[in-house]
């Protein structure tokens, strides 16, 4: 099957005390898709990603990545995850960070060096490779974090707000890279608040209060919401989500 879903979630439910973060959520993402996860703050985007990655156990339902029920050790070598916080060692240099995390995957020193070089070019930090990560700006540290997440060439990557605090020029080159990865068959799930980013996705899912309100290509979403711009569509959806609550 060419269009086998590499991410399949059924009936995911997760509550933190009394707050419902995921409310019986179903999701299927096919291989090679660039999937944009949109939604207001607190909609459950991060919870969904963490649950899919096996970092949170759902109260109900199940998540499968590449056919394996999560959490599973087997998918980890093919899984990339970029958390919302920087999750880098401030006391290590940029390159040392890459080398350490690369070492956790079964990559040789030579492979790590090569990949680190490529990714540092991508995130435009080649000239800062030997600086302590802690001395870099927030945007730069996020770029280090992205480089770490993609170092081992994952088949499937979850990127939680990879462009927050990143300047427009670099943000565009990130998305060019995401598109290239997706053409190469890598499945990407990227959370975003930005309409221009959502427009570059194959599929956009709009999450509100733990439920997937709508899912489809940007054009399909405009059609279904009857709006002119994706901005308007998101606002309409957000209002709708709050009404149905």
């Amino acid at each position, binding site marked *: 099957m060419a269009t086998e879903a590499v991410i399949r979630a059924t009936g995911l439910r997760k509550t933190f005390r009394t707050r419902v973060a995921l409310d019986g959520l179903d999701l299927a993402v096919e291989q090679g898709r660039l999937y944009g996860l949109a939604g207001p703050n607190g909609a459950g985007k991060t919870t969904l990603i963490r649950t899919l*990655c*096996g*970092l*949170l*156990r759902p109260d109900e339902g199940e998540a499968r990545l590449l056919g394996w029920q999560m*959490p599973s*050790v087997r998918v*980890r*070598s093919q*899984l990339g*995850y970029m*958390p919302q*916080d*920087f*999750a*880098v*060692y*401030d006391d290590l240099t940029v390159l040392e960070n890459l080398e350490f*995390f690369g070492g*956790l*995957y*079964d990559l040789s020193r030579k492979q790590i060096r090569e990949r680190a070089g490529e990714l540092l070019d991508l995130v435009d930090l080649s000239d800062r490779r030997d600086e302590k990560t802690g001395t870099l700006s927030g945007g730069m540290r996020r770029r280090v974090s992205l480089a*770490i997440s993609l170092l081992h060439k994952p088949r499937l990557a979850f990127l939680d707000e990879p462009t927050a605090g990143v300047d427009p020029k670099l943000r565009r080159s990130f998305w060019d890279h995401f598109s290239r990865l997706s053409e190469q068959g890598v499945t990407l799930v990227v959370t975003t608040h930005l309409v221009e980013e959502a427009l570059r996705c194959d599929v956009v899912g709009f999450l509100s209060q733990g439920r997937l309100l709508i899912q489809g290509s940007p054009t399909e979403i405009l059609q279904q919401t009857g709006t002119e711009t994706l901005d308007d569509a998101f606002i309409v959806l957000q209002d709708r989500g709050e009404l149905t609550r």
Partner: protein
Amino acid sequence: MKSFTIMRNVLWRIARDRRTLFLIVLLPLFFVLLYGNSFSGSFRNLPIVIVNQDNGLASVRVKNADRITLAVNLAAAFVANLDSDTFDITFSEDADGAASAVAEHEVWAALVFPQNFSHAVVNEALQQSGERTAEVDGQTVTLLPSVVIEGPSTVLTLDDGNPLIADAIITSFAASFAAVLGTQQASLTPESLLEVHPLYGGDIRMLDFTAPGIIGFALTLITVLLTAMAVVRERTSGTLTRILIAPIRAWEVSIGYTLAFSTVALVQAAELFLASALLFDIRFVGSAAIVAVIVIVFTVGLQGIATLISTVSKNEAQAMQLVLFLLIPAIMISGVFWPLETMPATIRPLAYISPLTYANGALRKVMLTGQGWADIALELAVLAGIAVVMLVLSILMMRRQAFSA
């Protein structure tokens, strides 16, 4: 003044943090209870051996009489005067066996009364006072001046590996002698009756005695703080999530941490031992290799404890408080200053779950008295058990951290 705004903010945030609040309120009381309990006890049931070869008083002349044989056995009177709570007394006929029981650490002391003990004591008393009569056990006796007896020497073989216990034994014996001899015989001091043979030549100072425990405590504090802080920081910074989502097993992560901090602990231990020896001439008569093994096994267990602390702590501040909450009592109850033997039964079980108790015991045996593998087998086995259990628990917790990170 904006200081009050700052103050309110700090206090409000403390009040919000239930665990911190709990510790702030409970910690002082907890310390006082522990301190009071661990310090207030006295020695109980110290095993000693007594070999009583004393024939008692014979052939004495009583005032206004010719000769009379008194059924007075001063050694027996001495024994009867010993506090039965303090000592657990075994009687033996075998003087050599008694002494070797001390050397084997089966008993703390062996006291051997010579055959002529009673006779010699009375003789000595009369000679020193220059009188012909003496009051012994309520009766006035006069010794034949022609009878010359070698001075009364009661041989006390003493395990001075624990100077506190050694002192307590001597004090207790002296008190018993004083009671038997009565106030009249002030010239005959209890010390002059005791010929003390300390097992370690009386060379073990209080400094030497407490050093192993203090070193163990320093190791505990540094290792546990360092490990707990590192793991908490790894979690709060998100790097732990990143590690745990990589194709690595929880046990590999835990063992990795253990290896790293064991290395650190070994370096620190070496420094602690060297500095103690060079600067303060701390007694170290045993094998350094055995000490190294004790340190490794001990610190592996500590790291497991540290990892557990880090998993239940939300942040560095909580971890720090938990560390202090667990470690300060440890030094009070682990026999470092006050021997376990004096501890009330109510808190002694706490001592037996503290790894420091076993580390201290084992280090003391090796450093102070040069004992070997066989003598520390029990302590080492318990430490190894703690290490294994803690390591397994920390691996399980590490696995769980992935889901709570």
